[in-house]
């Protein structure tokens, strides 16, 4: 049974202002989608709303994940269902190591599924962590650093993908994961995502620039403009956008 994230006619206000004005999108396990748009189009709003940030008010529409209505659920419940958001600006949690954090997140999942669960055995956890860190070319002692504290931009993004790798979501939303990354970091992060994406994980790459899509090749590209998806297509749509710029699209929309 393929899980799907279905966004239907989604309207979202932020501080009373309408930002999303009717977004329709379906992302399934096994698919890679890209969502592109200029600044202010509502990309991050969509990302935060999907995950359930309290500041984002859904005024109309639905979000269904794997058959479940997400709008009734808190962020942790959405995560438990298999939704993951790689943050554009990962938050610092001082004093908590990356390893400790990951183990507790995994245990929270296990416990939610089975209240009697004793937690993941440490050797099993360590092995999984090492494997995923190798996948992302991360040195093992990185796991002993406090979560996002003093991390460079590239380190933060890689840590997000490491979390994704360890939590194994069904659908992952990457919110401008490419921002702040140089070519090498971008390549490593993309490789990681590519290895993890597949029949059991669908990916929604949210980005401003086409560059990341050279590495993470989408099957579907959507363009968000002023709070709505105005155009959808295949991978070539992204290239077209790069050549023509967002103004081209604005004209098209104004005409149509």
């Amino acid at each position: 049974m393929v899980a799907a994230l279905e966004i239907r006619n989604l309207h979202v206000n932020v501080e009373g202002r309408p930002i999303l004005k009717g977004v329709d999108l379906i992302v399934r396990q096994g698919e890679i989608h890209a969502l592109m748009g200029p600044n202010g189009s509502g990309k991050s709003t969509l990302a935060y709303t999907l995950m359930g940030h309290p500041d984002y008010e859904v005024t109309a529409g639905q979000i269904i994940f794997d058959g479940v209505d997400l709008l009734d659920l808190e962020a942790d419940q959405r995560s438990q269902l298999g939704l993951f958001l790689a943050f554009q600006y990962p938050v610092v949690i001082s004093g908590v190591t990356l390893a400790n954090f990951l183990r507790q997140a995994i245990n929270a999942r296990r416990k939610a599924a089975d209240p009697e669960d004793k937690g993941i055995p440490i050797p099993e956890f360590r092995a999984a962590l090492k494997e995923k860190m190798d996948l992302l070319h991360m040195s093992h002692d990185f796991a002993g650093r406090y979560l996002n504290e003093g991390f460079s931009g590239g380190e933060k993004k890689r840590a997000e993908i490491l979390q994704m790798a360890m939590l194994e979501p069904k659908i992952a939303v990457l919110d401008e994961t490419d921002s702040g990354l140089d070519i090498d970091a971008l390549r490593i992060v993309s490789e990681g995502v590519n290895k993890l994406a597949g029949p059991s994980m669908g990916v929604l790459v949210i980005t401003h620039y086409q560059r990341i899509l050279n590495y993470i090749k989408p099957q579907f590209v959507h363009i968000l403009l002023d709070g709505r998806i105005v155009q959808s297509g295949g991978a070539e749509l992204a290239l077209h956008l790069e050549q023509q710029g967002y103004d081209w699209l604005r004209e098209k929309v104004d005409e149509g």
Partner: protein
Amino acid sequence: MTNEDARQLEGIKAGYQEKYGFHVPENYVFKARKGLDRAIVEEISWMKGEPEWMRDLRLKALEHFFRRPMPTWGADLSGIDFDDIYYFVRATSQGAANWDEVPPEIKETFDRLGIPEAERRFLAGAGAQYESEVVYHKVREDLERQGVIFLSMDDGLRLHPDLVKEYFSTVIPYGDNKFAALNTAVWSGGSFIYVPKGVRVEMPLQAYFRINTQNMGQFERTLIIVDEGAFVHYVEGCTAPIYSSDSLHSAVVEIIVKPGARCRYTTIQNWSNNVYNLVTKRSVAYRDATMEWVDANLGSKVTMKYPAVYMVEPGAHGEILSIAFAGRGQVQDAGGKVVHGAPHTTSKITSKSISMGGGRASYRGLLKVHEGAWGSRSNVVCDALLLDDKSRSDTYPYIEIDEQDVTIGHEATVSRVGEEQLFYLMSRGLNEEQANAMVVNGFVEPLVKELPMEYALELNRLIQLQMEGSIG
């Protein structure tokens, strides 16, 4: 305590009498009488068979206690009724008279912390610690070989009266404050430790190991002397909540760290929420000596405690790492004092306080640099974390610098658990409670890192429990 327990305890005491020659007065009379007067103090001293100088000291201290007014600063102590307290040591039990008396929340916490059955009764004061007798003897053998003295204060006075007389009350005289006077008058229990020159005691010594008098008394008196170049780490208390039917605890800890020596004193305090915990802890550090206080305050109704290091010779170093957790109905007025009395002395105070559910955690500290203490450095960091709108945190830093050529740093922060932090953690599947607990544990990590492993694990779990509000 059941009759069975009492008989077993008597058996152990009798054994000690034989093996180690401890003296227990024949006409041992156990009087249960509240209130404090000369007669009580004399009885305590007589019962213990103390030398006259100690008895006289107690009586002088008592007079001072009566004369001295209550402090006008700090937490509200008006709830203490001095006449409604047993000052006379109750040899059989300082906790619940029986297991049924122990409040259900405490019992439940033992469950959740996974404390074994026998330990629970001990921690509740309802039974003697039998298993530790074996450990205790082994520890004693090792220490004896090194020449280390580790006894209860009562036995220390009995077996090493000259050594005790040389140092007792030299760091904290009874005139220091009202509660030091009280303790000096009615003290019982506590530890006496002497570490000879150059000896390093690798294993942390724990009060737990002494079982021939009660371990968590109201008026414990501890005296630690670390001779030149020696090292010892002493650990007091435990993370499991200690139920005490006694509502006033007033301990005194004096530590002398001689040149080149190092001492670390770790306390984890988790008294039940009816206790006033008023403690005077002070250390004197000599040339190139190091004193470290690691102080975790989780329980009690009111705690006032400011571990102090007086650096009296060049090269001395003092560190105080303090964490206070104030939940509903609790006041933690804690911090530290560092006094630089010589050149090239260094100190560091790190204080972390957490308030939730209307609790009030304060940092109160003194950083004093005497004239002539040139080349000294000190850094104070006090961070407060407020977990909700009802809670409160105050900072009372007293800074008195009488010397120009010094380097001083002082930082204070107050923070909430950020909404963004919560959202980030919840987006990884942690529910709101778990997310809060994680932020709090991260907040206290600098201190937890310094604790012996078992305590660190218990402390993290205990914080989680506190967050879930399952402890009163």
